[in-house]
């Protein structure tokens, strides 16, 4: 089976004049298959966000290749990149900040649809459908980001990500800024979406909470200082950690 996302040798070196180069991500490689949910865990500063930003091309990589559905997107720009964004979407860490404070949630969700040539009326209908799918009501389309709670805003952010029917959904610490009960609600929503979309939706789930990853992901990568130090099925990794860092990570929770 062809992977949805294939990352080869991905590296990011930050260079600043007068300072030694800092390797944030060091030759990592992994594959994500259709319908799979891959967890990526690691402490702050381990390079999780850098990896995600390189995959979504918000940040240029120093070395390596990113293949989305077999197409090399590592150096795409402009139109080609916009085409790639129809296959790949992201849910951000801070829900309220990921919506323009001067636009309604409906505008934000419908933006990608409008950009892909959908008419205003069709977009409105589709936004209503997406909001309902994500457990909100169509009325939320006319609200502003500061008028909804964090959990509701994150649901709207998921609706926005799903608008273009992407094959790859990246959740960059999508639950981290929410409280525990809302975290569970969002996870339940993501689980529903997985069941509903089947093999058409793969999720890359970035998280620092190993318990959530165990609950949600089918496979997990442990990132430490820019390197993948361990990977496998979450239960395996948790019960029989091989790497000293993974062991420490698990001990710190128990």
């Amino acid at each position, binding site marked *: 089976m062809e992977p949805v996302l294939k990352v080869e040798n991905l590296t990011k070196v930050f260079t600043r004049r007068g300072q030694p180069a800092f390797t944030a991500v060091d030759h990592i490689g992994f594959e994500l298959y259709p319908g799979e949910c891959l967890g990526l865990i690691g402490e702050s500063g381990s390079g999780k966000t850098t990896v995600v930003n390189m995959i979504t091309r*918000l940040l240029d990589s120093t070395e390596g290749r990113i293949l989305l559905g077999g197409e090399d997107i590592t150096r795409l720009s402009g139109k080609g990149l*916009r085409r790639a*964004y129809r296959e*790949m979407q992201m849910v*951000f860490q801070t829900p309220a*900040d*990921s919506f323009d*404070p001067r636009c309604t949630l409906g505008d934000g969700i419908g933006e990608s649809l409008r950009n*892909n040539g959908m008419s205003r009326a069709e977009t409105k209908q589709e936004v209503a459908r997406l909001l309902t799918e994500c457990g909100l009501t169509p009325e939320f389309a006319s609200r502003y980001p500061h008028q909804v709670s964090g959990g509701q805003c994150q649901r709207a952010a998921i609706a*926005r990500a799903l608008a273009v029917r992407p094959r790859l959904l990246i959740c960059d610490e999508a639950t981290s800024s929410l409280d525990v009960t809302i975290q569970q609600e969002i996870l339940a929503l993501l689980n529903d979406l997985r069941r509903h979309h089947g093999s058409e939706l793969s999720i890359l789930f970035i998280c620092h909470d190993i318990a959530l990853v165990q609950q949600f992901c089918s496979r997990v990568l442990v990132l430490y200082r820019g390197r993948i130090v361990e990977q496998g099925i979450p239960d395996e990794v948790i019960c029989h950690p091989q790497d000293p860092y993974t062991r420490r990570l698990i001990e710190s929770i128990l």
Partner: protein
Amino acid sequence: MTAMREPTVRIQKIRKDTVRTRLIIFGALALILLLCSVFCEHLTPYDPYLQDLKNAKAPPSPEHLFGTDRYGRDMLSRVIVGSRTSIFSTLLLVGIVTALGTMVGVFCGWHGKWIDTVLMRISDMFLAFPGLVFAMAVAGVLGGGLQNAIIALVAISWPKYARIARSQTLAQKETPYLNAARLSGSGTWKMIFKHILPNIIGPILVTSMLDIGTMMMELAGLSFLGLGAKPPTAEWGSMMSDARSLLSSVPWVTLAPGFAIFVSVMIFNLLGDTIRDYADPKSRGR
């Protein structure tokens, strides 16, 4: 407990209301000023350009409220007619400067790299130079006239707006919502016009409102120095300049346009202040 909390709520409500009242008052005053300058021909008691040498240098009286100048022209009429040139050229000037400075600033902030460095060093040079002196030099080279005075003042005033717009753009560029817009497939123009501009325009507009007063004074200053409007055009700055040699014998000819400048600068400054208070996110929507 409830009895103690109530006054706090009421105080906040009253404060908010005063800001709105101030906005209405100063907005209305500014509107009156604008209407005055639009319909100035119909408001003048006498023809502002008609000379009446028999009545020259007449002190303020019931017939001539602000007196007459050395050619016997009615000062009140001249001040009223002068409002059109003074106020409209000021508004035009502020409009051009705001648009130009914002454009440069957004471009620099968005594009970055070498072009940002070059344009910002140029703006540093402008900021480091005494503004009015430079404006005099520019107006001197281009020659007198209101149009050239406006060009000169645009040349010295844009860096302030470019700086504000640039720093605001840089701050907006890193926000998650802009990344989200990028992921939604929005192009550069759409991101700038739909997301960046609406979010940065608040502080820029407030600055330009506050600048109306300053610009009016600088324009009057250039006219006073003979680099702005040419006689016999009624313009407040040049009217003051014309009469300055007579200041000790016929003070009203200088004081009348001076008073007009003072009042309009005051109104626009207070309006700018009020708009800033009103636009403050902390007081909005509470």
